[in-house]
């Protein structure tokens, strides 16, 4: 997440999607995105390297 200004991203991305955030919404939403980003950091890089095809799923 260090290469990523979450608050700026939140404001810009919301605007682009037509979500007009109130000032008091920005920080809680950015916090949530930050939390999900911390989870993404647990996804091992080698998986991306090993599987470059489009996502597929079979149970």
């Amino acid at each position, binding site marked *: 997440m260090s290469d990523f200004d979450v608050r700026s991203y939140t404001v810009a991305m919301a605007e682009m999607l037509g*979500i007009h955030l109130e000032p008091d919404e920005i920080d809680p939403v950015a916090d949530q995105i930050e939390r999900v980003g911390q*989870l993404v950091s647990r996804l091992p890089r080698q998986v991306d390297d090993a*599987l470059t095809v489009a996502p597929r799923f079979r149970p």
Partner: protein
Amino acid sequence: MTVPDGTVGVLEIATKVRGGQVSALDIAQAALDRVDSAQARLNAFTTVTTERALTAAADIDRRVAAGEPVGALAGVPFAVKDLFDLKGEVTIAGSTVLAARPPADRDAAAVERLTRADAVPIGATTMDEFAFGFTTENTHYGAARNPHDVQRTPGGSSGGSAAAVAGGLVPLALGTDTNGSVRVPAAFCGLFGLKPTYGRLDRRGAQLFSDSLDHVGAFTRSARDLGAWYSVADAGSSDAQPIDVGQLRVARLGGWFEDNAGEAALDALTSVADTLGADRTPAMLPLAEAAHAAASVITYAEAGELHLDRIRNERAQFDPVVRHRLVAAALLPADWYLRAQRLRQVWVDQLDELFADYDVLLAPATPFPAPIIGTDTVEINGRDLPARPAVGWLTQPLTPTGVPIGVAPMLSAESPLPMGVQVIAKANNERIVLAVLTALEDLGVTTCVVASAQADQNRNESS
């Protein structure tokens, strides 16, 4: 003709109604009375379908009296999580946003399966808004409560359904499981639960949460009742060959699944593992922590996309607990979602490798027993865990694989609060899961009791 009380299960009711030993109308009225009298204590229901239930039950009695055929679940009262369409009712999914929608013009597919078998819908149950939670704490409609101790959560997001079955209001209820929303409430309420293989059960008429993870499931108080539901719910299922449970190769999952489990969870797991003759050495899934992360990211991204229009225009009506999560969900970079989905396939392959050596895998369903409603942190193995998300840490990694998972309910002499053990089989092997649950029930290893108001009162007075 004595009307069975709330402790009687699916198969016994159906047998007695079909045999004319008891009236379906009396059964339905008794269930409606129980729902009414327990609502203030459990808050399990958001809609009660009194007229429909009584009409359907009277028609069953008429056909029985006339010697006409009736279905396999004749007269069995059931409830549905309030995200399954019930014809003539508004499906609200725990929200107020959806309350303005018109009533459903037909039943959801999972409901139709039951009503075709002459089960009787009693109503719809309390849930987390849009299924986004593990505790059924709902700002709009109040928290559902655990019949074993009404100060505690029944789990979520199918918490109202689980409370309805555990409290003896109905013997069968439908739920959905995206990250554990059947398995967690089954464990916290001491019920048998089943999440069949992803894609086996038709989700038409169900309000989705995360498309690639959502499963239809159910709760009962006995393994055979669960099997009776599944045989009706999945017309493609086969029980032609009996399963010899003693011949199954069984392992308990180690690593993530033990490191994040408390003492009560591990005790329950050990009891089941020893009974089934599981390998002494735990089976390892090194990607479990990553799979937990992937399931979370996928859930967020898919939920955000699903609700995007409402997030733009109606989010002021959302439950405050859910609102910021859903807005954030809509904003996630596509890169994150794709990385999670790629991990998912590698994870499925890793689990498949284990199934080359084992028929059944076991893991605790939750790290700890049901917490007090409103609890923020729970200490496990010397660490303070965030209570609400941690509830799903042991179910969530397994959902992206889509495999069938049942829950064996466990009660110990040391604690009045139930725990659950996940019984996991390879895709499309529901009959193995059901056979194991049935064997555990027959051996007396699993325990499932109706939690009465009196027992709950006694417990709270003595604590």
